[in-house]
């Protein structure tokens, strides 16, 4: 993909963000139109995921017939789901199903893992859950990274994963957990998983870099997995006493708002994260949760 093509895709992705408000397929969505976020709570990860998306207007509002959808969970580590180091497999599996129900042609699931990819995919349970739902799972391949221009303040260009930009729709599905540098890792941090090259260097100026990435990859939806959250020794975890059961899934289109909301789950202020403040200032989203219409449901 060359630069012109990339800019075109970025523009299309940007436009699709504005569209859903105009093209509401059914009545139920009309009510949802004004919602900024839905937060669902309940004991079944699959059920609350479905309920949250439905309350937000249903997947049909975001995914059209024939779409190729990329779902980007956090599969960074070789951990099993109970350690809350990777996105809940049931949440991912349910999203895959919802996309297909909305008519998606293909749903791709992948992540640029930190642990060995084979182990991370398998042990996280995501390979099995997403695979059973019909998703196309693939390991990230070096040859599919291309150096891309980034209209960022810190990052000017970086090798990014082409499949993300070739998709019609992108759904970001981070898990909420703590991190030594960025305090928490939530939605914007999850974009590190589409970066190639020597991405460890990002940590040197983590917040502006994350905002630059959020500028570059505009998700159709952000679905925050807070079924279990990791409150210490993140992002790898490994100790069950650091895991809190929250039974929560949140859905929004606003990356900044979602990360602001994620912070509150850890007892932090909504503007606790540097990337949230910078993203808000840059107009990427709205971190003021009090000024948003958030619907909380029980499922």
């Amino acid at each position, binding site marked *: 993909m060359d630069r012109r093509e990339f800019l075109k895709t970025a523009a299309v992705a940007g436009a699709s963000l504005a569209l859903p408000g105009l093209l509401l397929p059914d009545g139920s969505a009309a009510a949802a139109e004004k919602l900024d976020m839905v937060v669902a709570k309940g004991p079944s990860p699959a059920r609350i995921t479905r309920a949250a998306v439905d309350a937000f207007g249903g997947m049909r509002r975001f995914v059209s017939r024939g779409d190729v959808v990329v779902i980007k969970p956090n599969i960074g580590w*070789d951990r099993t789901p109970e350690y809350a180091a990777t996105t809940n497999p049931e949440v991912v599996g349910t999203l895959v199903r919802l996309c297909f129900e909305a008519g998606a042609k293909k749903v791709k699931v992948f992540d640029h893992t930190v642990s060995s990819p*084979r*182990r991370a995919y398998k042990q996280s349970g995501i390979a099995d859950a997403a695979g059973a739902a019909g998703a196309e799972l693939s390991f990230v391949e070096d040859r599919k990274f291309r150096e891309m221009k980034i209209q960022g303040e810190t990052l000017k260009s970086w090798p990014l994963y082409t499949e993300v930009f070739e998709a019609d729709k992108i759904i970001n599905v981070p898990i909420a957990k703590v991190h*030594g540098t960025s305090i928490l890792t939530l939605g914007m941090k999850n974009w590190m998983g589409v970066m190639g090259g020597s991405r460890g260097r990002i940590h*040197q100026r983590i917040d502006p870099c994350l905002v630059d990435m959020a500028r570059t990859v505009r998700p159709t939806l952000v679905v925050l997995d807070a079924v279990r959250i990791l409150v210490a*020794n993140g992002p790898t975890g490994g*100790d069950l006493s*650091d895991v809190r059961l929250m039974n929560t899934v949140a859905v929004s289109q606003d990356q900044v708002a979602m990360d602001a909301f994620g912070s509150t789950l850890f007892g932090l202020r909504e503007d606790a994260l540097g990337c949230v403040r910078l993203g808000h200032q840059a107009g990427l989203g709205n971190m003021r949760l009090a000024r948003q219409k958030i619907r909380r449901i029980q499922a």
Partner: protein
Amino acid sequence: MIRKARLASQALFLLLFLWLFLQTESKGADQLGYPVKFFLDADPLLALTAILSSRSFLPSMLLAGAVALATVFLGRFFCGWICPLGTLHNLAGAAVRKRRRVVPKGSFRLKYLLLVFLLASSAFTLQITGIFDPLSLLIRSLSLSVYPAFQYGVTSFLDVLSRWPVPGLAPAADWLLGILYKGVLSLRQPAFSQGFLLGILFMGILALNWIERRYWCRYLCPLGALLGILSRRSLLSRSVSEGCDSCGACVPGCEGGCFPQSPDKWRKAECYLCGNCDDACPKNAVSFGFGKKRGAAQLDLGRRRVVAAAAAGVAAVPLLRIGPSGTGQADPRLIRPPGSLEEREFLQRCVKCGECMKVCITGGLQPALTEASLEGLWSPVLVPRVGYCEYRCTLCGQVCPTGAIRRLSPEEKADVKIGLAMIDPGRCLPWAHGIFCIVCEEVCPTPKKAVLLEEVVVKDREGMPVTVKQPRVDLERCIGCGICENRCPVLGKPAIRVLSVGESRSRDNRLLLP
């Protein structure tokens, strides 16, 4: 008839061998699901010398005993019908039209003398059999050299093709790669520090077929020698009827160089039961069967030669051990895989087959050159900059055929230290340069992080205060897995490095009081 059956058997076992070789790779679960070390387990030479050198029995080697026993009855069927290296020799030899026979008479004794040498050295605790053992040699050569070269060749060839400005080429190459990655290619390009050397050696061994058919098997293979000795009185045997007039039609086809044209000079211990003489005989005078007359030449090695070979084997023990690492000071780079026995015992068992290096999911296990003295040549060493030890992986212990690397449960493994990380504050970004980093802390996999962060205020070059987090390693929690060194963004020489000190398997190579 015999020949056809033999060819079928060879093809079958070669395919089985290659299949198991390809399965010696993590698929994400912590078990491989296939008995990938099957051929090594069935190897009587490895079993015998490992039992001698380690002074313990290895339960996995019952299979080897069965092969030895079968050889006593059936002769060297293993060489002719099973051994994948032998089959490769056949294939390589088939490419040669004309041979210049320059092998001195009596060369066939060499392999017996090598066997005596190896048995003597292993009786005195040295385990270098795997350097010469055909199965170990084959797996090592394939793992560390042929397979990596194959993968590199295929992927870069297709890559070059796909860049040609021909429509349809790129998607076709892509499609083919996709298929190859499913079963044949490895997810990550394998890379080993001595791949080139091992590749040259392997090609040299195959090239010997140019001088003589199955040169390696006839003159060098110590496993062949052992099986030859075992087969001397086997019941299954070749016999020649009166019709034979020593015309010599069977000579060129004879794989073992057994002197088949002469009923009394025929060397039974060299016969692989290949059946080529049966096929070639114009008089139909040759037959294979049980309880046939067993007239055959004695195996005469010469007493002096045997004594000399044994003496050399004994002398090799101190000679190979007088490297600096034999002095009791552990080499800091000698990071052994988790579950490895204490170094002395480890070396007495490790046969350098390369199974652990093939299976290591990160590619961090590399063949040693001098880190462990010459005795430890090609034994596995973790090189963190190349690949770290994956926290919950236990595969190397599962594939080790001799138990040099113990099989650990994931819970046991969590307590095993293979080394210790230390930070170099002169290179570490937050320590030396006031720049944010902490990648080492992020990736550290221990449940309570072994890298601690301390928030400090330092001054930038304008004298303005900046807050950074400086990492420090908790010496008790660190297990030496090396992912921190692997991922440290300070390139060249990383700012956090893992060395072997602190390894649980050693009583002495420790920093802290227990």
